[in-house]
């Protein structure tokens, strides 16, 4: 189950680059939005991704410690 989860997660990550349309002639509205205001939204996306990664890491650590506390009793 956990292996499957990891596999699905990595597959989902491979999908991310398909959101980019760097060489596309006609821009999608999402791409237009991301390129507006000096492309600041790209920075927001990068920072939110890093924050999400950190939070997911913390949540997993929290769960792991909870499990250890449970096993102890």
């Amino acid at each position: 189950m956990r292996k499957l989860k990891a596999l699905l997660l990595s597959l989902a990550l491979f999908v991310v680059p398909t959101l980019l349309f760097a060489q596309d002639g006609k821009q999608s509205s999402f791409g237009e939005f991301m390129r507006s205001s000096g492309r600041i939204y790209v920075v927001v996306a990068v920072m939110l991704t890093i924050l999400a990664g950190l939070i997911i890491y913390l949540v997993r650590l929290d769960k792991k410690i909870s499990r250890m506390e449970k096993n102890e009793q």
Partner: protein
Amino acid sequence: MKKSWWKILCVALLVYTFTAGLLWNVPYLPALEETIRNLYFHVCMWFAMMILFTISVINAIRYLRTLDLKYDTYSRQYATSGIVLGILGYTTGAIWMSYTWADPNNPLFESFSALAREPKLIGAAVGLLIYFAYMVLRDSVKDMDQRARISGVYNIFAYAMLFPSLYIVPRLLPSLHPGAEGNPALNTNDVSPEMRIVFYPAVIGWTLLGVWITTLKIRLALLKERKLAK
């Protein structure tokens, strides 16, 4: 996960900080320009550090009153997280200052020598070094009770030293750091209302993140201690 409502609040506030902090309008000031957005990140590190150090000293006093070793663990872990946030605050401040205070027309070295005399920087370094010494002192005592008692007393001294080194001395000397006349970032004349809407939640968010990390470290430390006791 234990008691998760404030962890969810922490995540929500941080997501808000990162989006609103980067996207919302900020007042324009020469030299500062967009870098004022660092208020939501750099200044929050120091606020969170101060709060964590306060929790640490409260637990040190609680230990000295009750001699319960649990409080000593709390005190130590809160001090560690405070140090981490302090180092982050120091580093981000160094980056920020090198693009706002440094004179681009000066050769780098001369400009740096002027900046290195900045009293706020030296004060912050002294404050952090006192806390580094706290860790060294703790870990050099082998006996558990003695270690807890000595480091509890030292923690109170270290906390008391933060005020002259961070707040008093830098204000007595000429400094480029803003807020020398009052409370930086808390003064209502200093920070525009639209920035305060982001700034206060940001402080709470970052502090909660620090507390979250610390509670994990405390739980791990207590687990380890119980395992050793068995």
